[in-house]
């Protein structure tokens, strides 16, 4: 039986790791739930954002938050552009998976072309900074990422819940024809949403650059876990994505501490399988 301190540390690390899952899951959940597009390229976009932050920071000494100011709007435009292609070709839920897989592979190749397959690490003065709460260490950057995920999830929830655009988007996801009959311009709002979703990938990318070691193949490493997060949280549900991220993060990290690190994936996917079988109506 591990000590209480170890367990507390595991829970804290899990929450922080879960924040990143939630941050990545947020954009995916929005486009899947509200636009019915499964965007595998989301992970590639986040990683591209991370590499750009890394490049601007280590080669030109641009502060990460400054580069985010440039990357996030650029990604918004990119997201709108992708969506223009999807609408032009009437991409469906299933074909979106294939097309965005292709986009992800191309982005992976682009990243590998410029930065090679070697591991990259963005060294900053504050990379290792952490706070101490009792016996538990809380790395500052990861906490910041987790807080950002929480703020974005809440803001997105409020946006969907209370604004006209949000309500229109949810109505269109339920029944596009009926929403259109009530005057909802689904096309315009869909562009906005895909832009926002891509912008979230940019934000996630900035934090990934600061927190983790970068390699092009990381695109595929997140795939399984974040998909689990998005489904457990409920498609198109920002708060759900965050909470599911935390749930998976904590369960993984506690498994790592209590059993062995290698068994961790079993937990998240068993949770996913159980939820899918017990409550298939969620998705």
């Amino acid at each position, binding site marked *: 039986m591990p000590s209480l301190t170890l367990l507390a540390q595991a829970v804290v690390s899990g929450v922080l790791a879960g924040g990143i899952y939630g941050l990545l899951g947020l954009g995916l959940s929005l486009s899947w739930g509200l636009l019915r597009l499964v965007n595998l390229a989301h992970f590639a976009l986040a990683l591209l954002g991370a590499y750009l932050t890394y490049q601007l920071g280590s080669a030109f000494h641009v502060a990460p938050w400054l580069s985010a100011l440039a990357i996030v709007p650029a990604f918004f435009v990119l997201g709108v552009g992708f969506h223009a292609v999807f609408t032009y070709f009437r991409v469906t839920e299933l074909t979106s998976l294939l097309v965005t897989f292709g986009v992800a592979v191309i982005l992976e190749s682009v990243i590998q072309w410029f930065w090679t397959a070697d591991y990259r690490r963005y060294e900053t003065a504050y990379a290792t900074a952490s706070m101490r709460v009792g016996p538990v260490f809380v790395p500052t950057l990861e906490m910041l990422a987790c807080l950002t995920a929480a703020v974005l999830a809440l803001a997105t929830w409020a946006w969907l819940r209370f604004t006209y655009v949000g309500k229109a988007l949810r109505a269109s996801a339920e029944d596009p024809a009926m929403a259109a009959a009530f005057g909802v311009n689904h096309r315009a709002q869909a562009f906005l949403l895909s832009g926002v979703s891509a912008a979230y990938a940019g934000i996630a990318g900035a934090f990934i650059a600061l927190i983790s070691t970068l390699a092009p193949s990381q695109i595929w490493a997140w795939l399984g876990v974040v998909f689990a997060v998005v489904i457990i949280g409920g498609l198109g549900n920002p708060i759900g994505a965050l909470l599911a991220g935390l749930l998976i993060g904590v369960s993984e990290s506690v498994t790592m501490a209590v059993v062995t690190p290698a068994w961790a994936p079993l937990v998240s*996917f068993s949770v996913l*399988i159980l939820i899918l079988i017990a409550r298939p109506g969620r998705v």
Partner: protein
Amino acid sequence: MAPGRRVAVGLLAAGLGFGALATVGIPAFYESFLYMIFSWIALATSWSILSGYAGYFSFGHGAFFGAGMYTTATLTTALGLPFLATLPIAGLLAAALGLGIGAVVFRVKRLRGELFGLLTLAVGFVLATIVLNTRIDGGPGVYLSAVPLPRVLASPTGTLYLLGLALALATVGTAYAVAHSRLGLGLYAIHDDEDVAELKGVPTLSYKLIAFALSAGIAGVAGGIHAMYVSYVTVGETFSITVPLYVVLMSVLGGARHWLGPAVGATMIAASLYAFTGGQQALLGRALVAFILILIVLLLPEGVVPAVLARWRAWRPRSMEVSEPPAALPARAAPAAVLTCEHVWRAFGGIQALRGVSLAVAPGEILGLVGPNGSGKTTLINVISGYYTADRGRVTLGGEALTERTAHEIARLGVGRTYQIPRPFAHFTALDNVALAATFGPGRCPPRQARDEARAWLDFTGLGRRATALPHELNLHERKFLELARALAGAPRVILLDEVLSGLNPAEIASAVRLIQQIRARGVAVLFVEHLMRAVLELSDRVVVLNEGEVIAAGSPHEAMRSERVIEVYLGTTHVA
């Protein structure tokens, strides 16, 4: 030459040709290049048997492939079994795994396609974790370099080449055979509309399980051979995302619904991947393949093979199908029987849709079932046909209880139905729509005879000239009559008509009424749900009136409609005087 024999000869010729190539002795590089293509053909084609035909996209094909790899790796190294003997075991184990997953997953109600895909994806990750953490692998990987390889040819690569070739041809042959069998017909119907397929007599659960086991089993054998080919098996390589994603891409590229599509797609992608090897070039190659994939998915969503075939047919129009003389309607297949409902109850959450409904329909009788919207008419049809189960009460046909049976069993016992909004199988021609019902319905015809019977029913409903049209080319009236023909195919003993007349114009209604009278004349029991009172009064021998799930009146049409409760329900209390 019959198409089936032509395919068999083609596969045999390919086998002999490529087999001869190996005996001549081609450079080992080409042998392993071709082996990789054969392996991908087997994987992609086996994937399409469930996922292409029935439309359940699996992202777990890597799990079955990996199960096969580790079966062979473990059995040859730990137990010292001969390599060839492990291949059938690898296949059976993978098939059992597929069957197990299917038995759990396919019982989930309302399982949508994407959910199935993600569940199978998760299974792959779980399996990888288990293998990695147990003695099956434990981390360092398994070496097979010391395992003896039977020498069919001089070189070991030659042997693996031949095994790969044999598996690829056998898989494509299997895919062809399945596509042209009763199983394949059922799987295609499941793809288009699973509920309707079940109600037309397709045993959907067992068909999905058979297809899943077959698909997984072939992937397992492919994995067993591949373990020997790579001779060093690791969890990271085996269970990577490559296999599940590439089989999907290859199949979709070639055309997942066509038996040859995945093989063509696999050859295209595997060959182009192999063409770019090493360093920056491989990187460019991968990006190029991805780009081509995007283009093809966007421009040819049905896949390369179907697109090419469509071009070919358009370029070389076949002689117009000669209209055959109308075939005789099949003689009654089963003895006439009475349909009874005894105190049938059914609730949805807190809403009691049916409260103890009892009625009986005799052979050669039309029973009109009327009532306001929401009175439970369609629910009753859904309970009789087995789409819903009754909470309480009994439904019998000729004394046999239907209540505990599945929908496809009820269809086979002789219950046909129509849908208020027609639900034809979208990728089936009008003829094939009806032929499917004849194949799986009470008559259980072999496919060829089913098409003859289907033609007769199309003529009967006046759709004879639209036999080769796809449902989206038919207008509402034709689709309604297609529903009718499909319900009649296989000669059911009872037919449930759910608002067949709604949305038709007076002339079309008149011809539908004549059809229904002819159906009655054949001794079929007809349960006729309709809002159009004129038709109900004209057609029905007896009428049952439902309101809020209860029978409020029954008897001859005029008697029942004049009952006070009925007038009250339809017109309100003030008019009852």
